[in-house]
């Protein structure tokens, strides 16, 4: 399933309608099936806005999102009928993206009952435990509430819940920025394993070029709602076009920089 974003613009109007925020300005790119696209940019450049639009949470002010060559609006009806949501979104903050009153088991069960409604009770349970174990959460923990888990565990649970919807494209909006470094590394490795296992397409958003480097095939650099750089990882690293990209690359710790040069050569 190929995803294409064409000339997307998003303008937020404040209540007074005097001040408007142009969060996205003419953003276009595409992602090939089974690949990982990294999106980097500083805080407030519109990464989350773009993620929400791609995931269908918000409508763009202008422009369109094409899924397998079809405009998202046109296939929305078809999607609703088949109860299929091929694009899922993992949120930045694992502390707020789970209902505090639902045990983890019930949070996943709710999704499984939509996307695997033909399963009987026993198979539903098996499926839930299978999803949880695929992200490394044991079944003995499944009847706990979200607040009884660490941030990293919660992010794993959120990932399992997204997988329950059998997505083809997963939008990851800074999935590790709320976690500390060692936990981040585990989550990123988990995501890479899952991507291979289910042949998923990722849109991996981060403000950290160092992390994006580990994961992506191609990369987008955003600045103030616009794309200033788009290309494969080696292209961008070897010949950055925009001044801002050059500064980002220079800011990657030098040791990392060396490693990239070795592998890139």
């Amino acid at each position, binding site marked *: 399933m190929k995803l294409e974003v064409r000339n997307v613009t998003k303008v937020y109007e404040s209540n007074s309608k005097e001040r408007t925020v142009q969060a996205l300005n003419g953003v276009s790119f595409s992602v090939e099936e089974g690949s990982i696209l990294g999106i980097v940019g500083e805080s407030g450049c519109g990464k989350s806005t773009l993620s929400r639009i791609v995931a269908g949470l918000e409508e763009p002010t202008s422009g369109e999102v094409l899924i397998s060559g079809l405009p998202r609006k046109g296939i929305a009806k078809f999607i609703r009928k088949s109860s299929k949501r091929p694009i899922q979104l993992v949120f930045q903050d694992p502390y*707020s993206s789970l209902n*505090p009153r639902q045990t983890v088991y019930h949070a996943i069960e709710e999704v499984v009952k939509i996307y695997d409604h033909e399963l009987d009770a026993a198979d539903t349970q098996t499926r839930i435990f299978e999803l949880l174990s695929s992200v490394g959460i044991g079944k003995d923990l499944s009847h706990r*509430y979200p607040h009884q888990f660490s941030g990293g565990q919660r992010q794993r649970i959120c990932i399992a819940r997204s997988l329950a*919807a059998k997505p083809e494209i997963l939008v990851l909006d800074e999935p590790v920025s709320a976690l500390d470094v060692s936990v981040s590394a585990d989550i990123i490795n988990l995501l890479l394993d899952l991507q291979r296992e289910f042949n998923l397409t990722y849109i991996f958003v981060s403000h950290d070029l160092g992390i994006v480097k580990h994961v992506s095939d191609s990369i987008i650099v955003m600045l103030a709602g616009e794309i200033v750089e788009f290309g494969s990882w080696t292209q961008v690293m070897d010949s950055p076009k925009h001044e801002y990209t050059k500064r980002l690359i220079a800011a990657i710790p030098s040791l990392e920089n060396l490693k990239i040069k070795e592998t890139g050569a």
Partner: protein
Amino acid sequence: MKIKRETKPWFYYYFKSLNGIIGIIILSLLSIGALVALFHATPYDPVAQDVAAILKPPSGHHIFGTDQFGRDIFSRVLDGVRRSLAVSILSVAIASIAGSLLGVAGGYFGTILDTIVTRMSDVFFAFPAILMALAIVSSLGHSWLDTAIAIGIVYTPIFVRVTRGPVLSLKETDYVKSGRVLGFSTPRILFKHLLPNVMPIVLVQIALSLSWAILTESGLSFLGLGTQAPDASLGLMVSEAQALAAFAWWTLAGPSLALIFAVVSLNLVGDGLRDSLDPTRRSI
């Protein structure tokens, strides 16, 4: 394989709170008293006068003493508790159902519905509750049903307020948004993800409003606009006892204590509910 499910219901946690236990015990005793009055099983007829026993202090015959007409104060207190509870339960039922539905719908769907709902609540909040209740009661009538409807209308905006605000912020939370991305229907989001999260606030508000409604009903009766003599009502009894309390303290003690116990127990129950309904407040 079988997995131990966490099926402990919220009332398991409720009975871990001392306040909640004390509140529910007092409330149960008051409710038993109200049931006794409902089935006319009070020791004496609450309105029967006895010229031979005027203003008698508490004794084995009349445990709360008698009033200026020789009526048994204990029986009158039970009957007053029955009336107060009936009025407050019905009025709070009206207020909580109407108010919560309006608040949740207004908060979630926004637009014109929300504007109308909030403007009307604002108008109601501009007047003191007792004044609004007075105005409504004087146009409806003085039966207990009219009193309950009046108090119910007056308290509806409180429930609009306590539900609308949380829904407004809850619908922007990531877990409601993620529900939308995952393809949950609007009713599922409203009733499974939003309502349970405002329910604790509503339940606590119900307990508090019950105690306020008892006070409002008493206030109306005190002012002569609620229960009419010779029927018993806690507010009416307090009002009548004012002139007598200096030399017959028991005429004031019975109804006042019943009022205090009713109000305090409902507040304690409110505390217990708040603690038990919120998983993050429970000890693991």
